[in-house]
């Protein structure tokens, strides 16, 4: 019996796979969702701060949210490992699964670098803009999460459907970013118009 087969057929896996209890497989899936929410949510907030949103937010207290992110990461890894074991032969044969792992690795590595470059230094962890390198890392984190979530979800579908979904995600993301950009600009220009013209000092 191969190792993959053993992983799927030991008594824990069988219970998790076959038990009708909601505390077996369904709760494992829910834990994977909690982990994702805290991991992706917290790191996204940190990345947005790096990219220039809320520039007045002090970095030192923001750094205190890193443990929340790592807690989410731990929950994701533990629940994800169990979910993998349950269908090891299935997942390990899917390219999308490796793309997901790679994207997570890039995001996690970027967050660790961000911590080292921006947050670990207590003296400079004040307010204001961050180095260009930190902005690139933050961009890498956001792109990686969209890739990881997309690749993770399409493991439930046939490859051709997954590919089409990936294209749809790409187009929707670009439309949302472009649309958001235009909406923010319009909103700002109407606000300036109400206040009597756009400020000239910014040019």
């Amino acid at each position: 019996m191969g190792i993959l087969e053993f992983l799927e057929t030991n008594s824990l896996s069988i219970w998790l796979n076959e038990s009708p209890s909601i505390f077996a497989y369904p709760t494992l899936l829910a834990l994977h969702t909690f982990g994702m929410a805290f991991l992706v949510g917290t790191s996204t907030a940190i990345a947005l701060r790096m990219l220039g949103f809320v520039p007045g937010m002090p970095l030192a207290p923001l750094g205190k949210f890193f443990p929340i992110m790592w807690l989410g990461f731990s929950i994701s890894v533990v629940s994800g490992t169990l979910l993998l074991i349950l269908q090891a032969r299935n997942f390990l044969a899917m390219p999308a699964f490796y793309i997901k792992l790679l994207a997570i690795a890039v995001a996690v590595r970027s967050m660790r670098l961000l911590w080292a470059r921006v947050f670990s230094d207590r003296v400079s962890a004040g307010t204001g803009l961050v180095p260009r390198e930190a902005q690139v890392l933050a961009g890498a984190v956001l792109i990686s999460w969209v890739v990881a979530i997309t690749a993770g979800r399409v493991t439930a579908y046939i490859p051709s459907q997954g590919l089409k979904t990936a294209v749809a995600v790409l187009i929707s993301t670009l439309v949302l970013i472009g649309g958001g950009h235009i909406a923010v600009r319009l909103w700002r220009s109407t606000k300036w118009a109400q206040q009597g013209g756009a400020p000239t000092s910014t040019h």
Partner: protein
Amino acid sequence: MEAFFTYILRWPIVENYFTANVWAWPLNEIAHFIGLSLLIGTVGMYDLRLLGFAKDMPVACLRQLLPWGVFGFILVTVTGLMFTTGIYYNIAVEPGEVLISDGFLQLKLIFYFLAGINLFAFYRTGMSRAVGDLGPGEDAPPLAKTLAGASLFFWIAVMYFGRLIPFGQLHL
């Protein structure tokens, strides 16, 4: 009236959109997950700060992140309504039947409304204004802490029962 509800619950526009595009259902799921992460991330950080975590963070700064949470909320609500009104495409069951038979969906909706009432109470009791200018090191009033804790609990419950919806009936 009943005919209207039957029609709007199984809304042909949504069902046809799913039927016509193989990428539509998984795209909807991905958008739901991204929205959920934005919502839980920003609201969770705000609630944790009110509860006393990372107390040197001014509350006003975290509040400036909340529009991203609102965007996440719009994403999950729109995609969630699309799952419901287009469910027939996925499992060939009338949405009305799912609503009256799936206990997890009902529990999720209950906690979703409780989270909404909680948010309403946060504004109505003046707690929103009271915490608005909390600076570094300042403690939120006890009522604000209670509401923040309730908010975290309700949203986690929404996520939990939401993930259980495909498993339908209760099996404890």
